[in-house]
C-alpha cells in the first residue's frame, strides 16, 4: 500500500471515500437543501466548519477518551461546533440561516460527521484527521453543488452562481454570474420528487460506469465472459 501523505488523504476523501456516492451517508441535507446552487454552497460551508472542528478535537483527545462512552463524547464535541455555526449564521448571514432552516442544527446527527469521528479521527493523528476532514468536505461540496446546479438549471432554467464575500463590511452570498438554457423550466425538479430523481439518476450513471470499468478490467486480464 502506498505511503500516507497529506495530499493523498485529501484526494481519498474526495473520490474513493466520497461521502454521498460511495459511503451513502448524510443524505438528508444533500437532498433537502439542494434546491439551488447558493443553498448547496451555504450548507457545505457550515458542514465543513463542523467536520474540521470535530475531527481536530476528536483526534486531539483520542488517547484519553474511554472507549465505552466515546459516542456521547463525540456528540458533545460535534454539538458544540454546530451551535457555534448556528449562531454565526444567524448573526452574519440571516438569509442563508432562513433558507437552511432546521438542517443546520441537524448537522449534529449527520452520519458523516459521527462516522468520520468514529472511523478516522479516533484512530489517526491530528494532521491526517484534518486532511481527511478537508477531503470529505470538498467531496461533499462537489456533490451538493452538482445536485444543486442540476436542480436549479432544469427547475428554473438558469443557475445563479454565488460566492461568500464581504462587501462594504457586510458578509453575504453575492452573485458572481449566471448561466441559462433556452428550455422551458420543469418545476418538478425543485420539488422533493426532483431531488430523488436527480440522486437516483446520478447513482445509476455511476453504477453503469463502474460496471463497464470492471468489465474492461476483466477483459484485460483475459477472463472469458
Amino acid at each position: 500500500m502506498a505511503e500516507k501523505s497529506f495530499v493523498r488523504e485529501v484526494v481519498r476523501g474526495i473520490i474513493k471515500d466520497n461521502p454521498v456516492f460511495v459511503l451513502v451517508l448524510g443524505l438528508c441535507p444533500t437532498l433537502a437543501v439542494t434546491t439551488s446552487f447558493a443553498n448547496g454552497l451555504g450548507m457545505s460551508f457550515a458542514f465543513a466548519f463542523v467536520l474540521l472542528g470535530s475531527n481536530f478535537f476528536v483526534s486531539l483527545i483520542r488517547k484519553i477518551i474511554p472507549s465505552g462512552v466515546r459516542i456521547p463524547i463525540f456528540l458533545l464535541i460535534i454539538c458544540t461546533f454546530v451551535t457555534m455555526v448556528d449562531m454565526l449564521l444567524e448573526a452574519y448571514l440571516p438569509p442563508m440561516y432562513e433558507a437552511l432552516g432546521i438542517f443546520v442544527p441537524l448537522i449534529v446527527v449527520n452520519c458523516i460527521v459521527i462516522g468520520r469521528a468514529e472511523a478516522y479521527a479516533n484512530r489517526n493523528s491530528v494532521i491526517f484527521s484534518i486532511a481527511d476532514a478537508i477531503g470529505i468536505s470538498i467531496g461533499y461540496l462537489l456533490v451538493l453543488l452538482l445536485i444543486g446546479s442540476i436542480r436549479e438549471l432544469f427547475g428554473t432554467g438558469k443557475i445563479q452562481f454565488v460566492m461568500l464575500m464581504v462587501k462594504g463590511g457586510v458578509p453575504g452570498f453575492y452573485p458572481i454570474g449566471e448561466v441559462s438554457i433556452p428550455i422551458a423550466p420543469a418545476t418538478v425538479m425543485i420539488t422533493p420528487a426532483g431531488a430523488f430523481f436527480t440522486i437516483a439518476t446520478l447513482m445509476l450513471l455511476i453504477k453503469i460506469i463502474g460496471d463497464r470499468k470492471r468489465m474492461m478490467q476483466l477483459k484485460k486480464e483475459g477472463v472469458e465472459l
Partner: protein
Amino acid sequence: MIETPGYLPTEALFPIVVDAMFTKNFLLVMFLGLCSYVGLTTSSETSKGMSMAVTFVMTMSAILTWPIFYYLLKPNKLMFLQTICFILVIASFVQLVEFIIHRYSPALYRSLGIYLPLISTNCAVLGVVLLNVKEDFTYGASIVYAFGAGLGYSWVMLATAAIREKLIMRGVDRFSGFIGAFFAAMMMALIVVSYFGVVKL
C-alpha cells in the same frame, strides 16, 4: 411567570396529522431520516421493527422535550442550548428503554431493541422535536404532530420495503439497491405532493 403556548391544543388537529403524514411527510417531503430509509428497507421485517421503534421514540421525545424547553431553557434564556439538550435527552431515553426491554421482555428486544441504538442519531427524531418548538405548538398538538410524523414515516418505510422485495423477486438487479429505493421514493413523493397539493386544508 413562565410563558408557554399552553397544554391543551388550540390548533386544529386534523390538518396537523394530515400534514405530518402526507403533505409534509418526513421522509418524502422534509427529507429527514433518509439514512435509515435506504439502509433498512431491504426487507419488510426490518422496516416494520424500525417503524415501530421510531414512532414510539418520536412520541416519547415530544412528550419529554416540550416541558424541558419551556420550563428550563426558555425562562433562563438558554435557547442556544436546545440542540445539545434535545440530543442528550433523546439518547439517554433511548438507552434507558433499551435497558428496560432487554431486562423484562427478550421477545420485544429481539424485534425492536436492535433498532433502538440506531435511533438516537436518526435525524427524524431530532427533527420532530426541533420543529415542535419552532412552530410554537401547544403540548397536546406537539404530541399529536410527533405521532403523526411517526405514522407517516412508517407507511413510507413499509411501502418501500414491499417495492424493493418485489424488485429483488423479479430479479431487477440494477434497481434493487439504493437506486431502487430512490426511484420508489421519487414516485411516492410525486404522488404525495401532487395529490395532496390539490386538497386545501
